[in-house]
């Protein structure tokens, strides 16, 4: 399984190159891998259906319990099939949808990387591995939403999606670490065996809340749902693939995956039930206020994600069956409808349902496919959507808590779904078009672009007619993985006349009545428009702009642009921090000077003092700098005197180069215009004196502490045997502490690049930059 994930990433890297080589056929060629992978996973159905998960493991950071493990059971298999199967269709579709786009190669790079990441996510058998793939899907989603990166709206939507999902990702990481602590392992195969252990652990509450934060942001549950409609800025194949069939279901996947480990408590059940029900109802209701095909689809996707979480929250055997069935049902019809929305957009240049009309004459095949998918969405027999809705009603009616209340919510949400399905198909395909709609344009619907919707819509019909194709072999193992007990999913189109059937009929009737009353839809749109500015989107915007305003404010305070003040602040902070330990703990024993001071040492000291005085008093910059150089050379002489030749050598050269640097800078500066004021001189003198005193105390304290360090002996003994060197300082630099040196030279290189970049900003250039 590792290779199946790696092969996707490898293909992603080759994609831009392949697109350049064969732009026309690249979609078909690139789709070969996902198609082959879906065949591979198809071949695994039989062995997984036996109930034994396939486990693979490669050590990664074994000392921390992190393995590249993969775990294939019914649940992962269902997702893997959706990812690779729909993935192949999307890749083919995108080749035609974005044909001629200069960025097609880049698009495939992101899309196929996403496929690899998503596949890794559902196959991962280790929580840390899962987390990494989880974050990779967020990042590739960011690139794909922002694909049209020249447009402001795309960039904003991409950033919003990233901030929300990656923010949830942080919570998830914390959750996984806590699970690792509480459960003693990151391995799913281990954790799934010990559900009760976590349940009784004191960290359980924190774990559940953090997991829910991660899953609810990723799967767009209220109040985090707002990023998903914004994400419709992405090209349509992306919306179809990431934002309806796969990535947004990652949260649902993880909730399902962890259900046997964390599920069963009141906290878990009520959180999922309430968030899911709210999302289910709000998503469906808000869809009715939209006029853009893709935004209607986005809100109904929010509804579907809510429904899945809601069903997992009910958590009974039938609810889990319903969740699995609905997962498949939704992927089939929603994938098809998204791709059809893309075709409509492509052919007419608009996705506004108020303008679209009469498309059936222009694209009869697409109209038929759209009708099939919409019928499935509305839950009309014999499509699979009908079975999906029946199982949902069945499960809700059997819910252990508040069944009569929940069934009202479910029926209401489904009535809205019927209306949304009608809105998207009846008028655009069979109604009358707005007079200004471009009636001739369009490129004709190619096979590549029709293949996806055709196969998805046809599958919806086929599975509806013959549910036995999937229930025992595909859906039963998936349900068993969530339920953690033997269970059998048995689907049928006809169950006899029972409560779900009556509710279904009621739903359809109510839906059509609402749809046929145009006034209702107009009012819904009005309400949608009125409520939109008050959604959580507003809070997101407010918090982002507050963050930016905070950053600007503190930058204004800290980055004032006065060099002398920067130095003042830096020194003052160092002095304060350095003095705190002495203040808190009193002075350590200081060394007492006992040796006779030599005559030339005295001379050097006097030289340094005189040079320091000269530097302060000098009326010119050059004079001050030369005096500073004298101080440096004086210190180097002291180093020689006390037997530190390498320090002295470095000091001499650094001092020389510093003086050269200063001279070069001063060459460009005017001479002193005004000298600093008396008060700032006193302030500087105080800081300088404090710095000098503190440094002296440091040195005396260090000498007074004695030299009982074992390091000296270690280096003296080990330098030759361990590192074959004789100069301790050098050996420390290039061998014992080479990692530090590597970091330091990297910083040095970066600092050089930074200084050069700063020097290149000439006043004229920077002004023009700031304007743009």
């Amino acid at each position, binding site marked *: 399984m590792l290779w199946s994930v790696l092969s996707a990433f490898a293909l992603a890297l080759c994609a831009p190159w392949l697109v350049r080589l064969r732009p026309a056929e690249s979609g078909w060629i690139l789709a070969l891998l996902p198609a082959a992978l879906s065949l591979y996973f198809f071949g695994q159905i039989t062995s997984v259906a036996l109930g034994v998960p396939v486990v693979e493991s490669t050590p990664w950071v074994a000392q921390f319990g992190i393995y590249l493990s993969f775990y294939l059971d019914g649940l992962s298999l269902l997702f893997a099939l959706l990812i690779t199967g729909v993935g192949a269709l999307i890749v083919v579709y995108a080749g035609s949808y974005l044909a001629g786009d200069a960025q097609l190669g880049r698009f495939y790079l992101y899309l196929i990387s996403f496929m690899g990441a998503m596949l890794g996510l559902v196959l991962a058998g280790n929580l840390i591995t899962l987390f990494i793939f989880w974050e990779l899907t967020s990042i590739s989603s960011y690139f794909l939403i922002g694909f049209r990166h020249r447009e402001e709206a795309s960039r904003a939507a991409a950033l919003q999606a990233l901030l929300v999902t990656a923010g949830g990702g942080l919570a998830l990481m914390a959750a996984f670490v806590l699970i690792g602590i509480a459960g003693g392992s990151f391995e799913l195969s281990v954790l799934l065996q010990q559900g009760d252990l976590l349940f009784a652990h004191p960290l359980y509450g924190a774990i559940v809340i953090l997991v829910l934060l991660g899953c609810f942001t990723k799967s767009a549950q209220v109040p985090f749902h707002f990023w998903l409609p914004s994400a419709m800025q992405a090209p349509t194949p992306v919306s179809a693939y990431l934002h309806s069939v796969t990535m947004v279901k990652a949260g649902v996947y993880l909730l399902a995956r962890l259900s046997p480990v964390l599920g069963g408590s009141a906290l878990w059940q009520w959180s999922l039930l309430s968030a899911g029900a709210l999302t289910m109802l709000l998503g469906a209701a808000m869809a009715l206020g939209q006029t853009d095909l893709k935004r209607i689809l986005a809100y109904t996707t929010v509804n579907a994600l809510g429904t899945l979480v809601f069903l997992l929250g009910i958590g009974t055997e039938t609810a889990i069956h319903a969740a699995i069935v609905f997962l498949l049902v939704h992927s089939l019809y929603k994938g098809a409808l998204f791709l059809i929305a893309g075709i409509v957009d492509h052919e007419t240049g608009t996705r506004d349902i108020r303008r679209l009309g009469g498309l059936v004459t222009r694209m009869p095949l697409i109209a038929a496919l759209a009708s099939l998918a919409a019928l499935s969405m509305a839950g009309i027999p014999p499509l699979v959507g009908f079975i999906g809705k029946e199982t949902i009603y069945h499960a809700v009616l059997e819910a252990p808590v508040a069944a009569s209340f929940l069934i009202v919510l479910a029926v209401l949400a489904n009535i809205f779904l019927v209306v949304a399905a009608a809105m998207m198909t009846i008028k655009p395909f069979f109604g009358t078009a707005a007079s200004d709609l471009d009636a001739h344009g369009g490129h004709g619907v190619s096979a590549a672009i029709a293949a996806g919707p055709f196969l998805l819509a046809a599958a919806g019909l086929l599975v509806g007619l013959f549910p036995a194709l999937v229930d025992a072999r595909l859906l039963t193992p998936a349900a068993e993985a969530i339920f953690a007990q033997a269970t059998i999913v048995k689907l049928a189109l006809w169950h006899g006349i029972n409560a779900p059937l009556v509710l279904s009929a009621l739903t359809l009737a109510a839906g059509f009545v609402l749809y046929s009353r145009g006034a209702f839809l107009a009012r819904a749109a009005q309400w949608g428009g009125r409520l939109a500015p008050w959604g959580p989107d507003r809070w997101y915007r407010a918090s982002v702009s507050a963050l930016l305003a905070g950053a600007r404010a503190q930058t204004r305070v800290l980055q004032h642009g006065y060099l002398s003040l920067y130095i003042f602040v830096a020194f003052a902070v160092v002095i304060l921090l350095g003095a705190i330990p002495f203040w808190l703990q009193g002075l350590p024993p200081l060394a007492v000077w006992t040796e006779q001071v030599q005559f030339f040492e005295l001379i050097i000291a006097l030289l340094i003092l005189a040079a320091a005085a000269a530097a302060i008093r000098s009326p010119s910059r050059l004079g001050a700098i030369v005096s500073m150089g004298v101080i440096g050379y004086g210190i180097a002489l002291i180093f020689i005197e006390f037997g530190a030749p390498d320090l002295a050598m470095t000091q001499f050269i650094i001092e*020389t180069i510093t003086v050269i640097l200063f001279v070069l800078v001063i060459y460009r500066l005017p001479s002193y215009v005004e000298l600093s004021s008396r008060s700032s001189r006193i302030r500087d003198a105080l800081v300088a004196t404090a710095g000098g005193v503190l440094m002296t105390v440091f040195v005396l304290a260090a000498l007074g502490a004695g030299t009982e360090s074992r390091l000296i002996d270690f280096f003296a003994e080990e330098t030759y045997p361990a590192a*074959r060197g*004789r*100069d301790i300082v050098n*050996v420390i630099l290039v061998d014992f502490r080479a990692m530090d040196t*590597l970091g330091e*030279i990297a910083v*040095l290189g970066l600092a*050089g690049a930074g200084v050069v970049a700063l020097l290149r900003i000439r006043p004229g250039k920077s002004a023009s930059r700031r304007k743009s």
Partner: protein
Amino acid sequence: MRQSLILATATRYLMPMLLLLSVFLFLRGHYLPGGGFIGGLVAAATFSLHAFAYGVKRTRQILRLHPRTYVGLGLLLALGSGLVSLTTGDPFLTGQWEALQFGALGDFDLGTPLLFDLGVYLVVIGATLAILLELEGG
């Protein structure tokens, strides 16, 4: 900057010696005070002397590569020298040594720390000169 004949002539004689000193300091590191950092600084100072005497343009010519290329090469070399140890299963940056015999010339050890130090040497030259030459006039 106006060229000074005395400085130009002096530089012509000083440069080879200073560069030799730089290489000497670099090579004797590990056994005696010296090493890549000091050696690199001496070389950088030497090139800035050249720039004073002959102008930045000529200095950039004799350097052949842009200073930032030296930084990149140095970092790659230091990183690469650390990777050698991975082939023998040691942790990153463990010194790997090969004893070389040169008969009458004596023996010496050649190891990855020397490569690492060469990386330091190049980064120091590159970063210092990048700043100095930019300051001295483009």
